[in-house]
């Protein structure tokens, strides 16, 4: 079993209105020391090991569905977990 974390953000050249809005809100709440805010999407995905390369699979998922590569970039982390009882 793999526990995968995927992070998606706009490409640096693209203005991120959500990040700007959050920054303004933080400034208004008196966090004047906040310099930049980027807002992105975050996915936690549990994937059963089926023998295929997990990296390949995650990249394909991102390219096909999770990110729109015209405007977004992604990165991911893969953790291998041994199947145990759920909490």
């Amino acid at each position, binding site marked *: 079993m793999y526990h995968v974390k995927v992070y998606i953000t706009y490409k640096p050249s693209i203005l991120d209105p959500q990040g700007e809005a959050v920054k303004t809100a933080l400034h208004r709440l008196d966090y004047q020391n906040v310099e930049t805010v980027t807002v992105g999407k975050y996915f936690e995905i549990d994937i059963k090991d089926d023998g295929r390369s997990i990296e390949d699979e995650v990249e394909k998922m991102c390219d096909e*569905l999770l990110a729109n590569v015209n405007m977004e970039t992604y990165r991911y982390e893969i953790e291998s977990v041994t199947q145990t009882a759920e909490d």
Partner: protein
Amino acid sequence: MKYAIIRFPGSNCDWDLFYVLRDVLKVTPEFIDYREQQLPADTGAVLVPGGFSYGDYLRSGAIARFSPIMEDVKHFADTGKPVIGICNGFQVLTEAGLLPGALRHNMSLDFICKPQPLSVVNNQTLFTDQFEKDQTVMFPIAHGEGNYYCDDETLTELKQNNQIVFIYQDNPNGSTADIAGIVNKQGNVLGMMPHPERASESILGGADGKLLFESLVASVEMAVG
């Protein structure tokens, strides 16, 4: 000749298109379920309606584009026949790669619904040949993710090929180059955020949108010969 309106789970301007085609243009619309593999053989045009396919979850249009029917919509477009995506339909067509670019959240981050003045930049397409060049038209917009984006290279191409069809006179959402609607290079696939079907009867406040459907219908009828 049928006008195929593609219906995804969450489409909600499907009936609006249906009524305009049937009651105003007096042609024959037909709903096509997203799970169908093929468009009807006598399809003259494909219309991808507005709404919230799959709730706009993830990104608007991102999930709908994998629907089985989209394969045949691509084939249909490849044959040069007309495909139009309105609002969510535009988002689906960009996600599906039928049109360049992408649609981001509006600059204000808010959903915006109001009548919006547009200029018809290109009246040489099969969707717009009943308009005057640079005519001002009033189409309502109603979207949260209508902020058109493309990179500089694509923008240059769009301009060079005269692919920009409608621009906002008063950019409401932050769209690159005020773009409200574009066609593909071949000119037979149109995507636009504003809703011509909401402006096709004077009781609803304006009928500019009717010209777009009249252009489309004329071209479909002509193709049949």
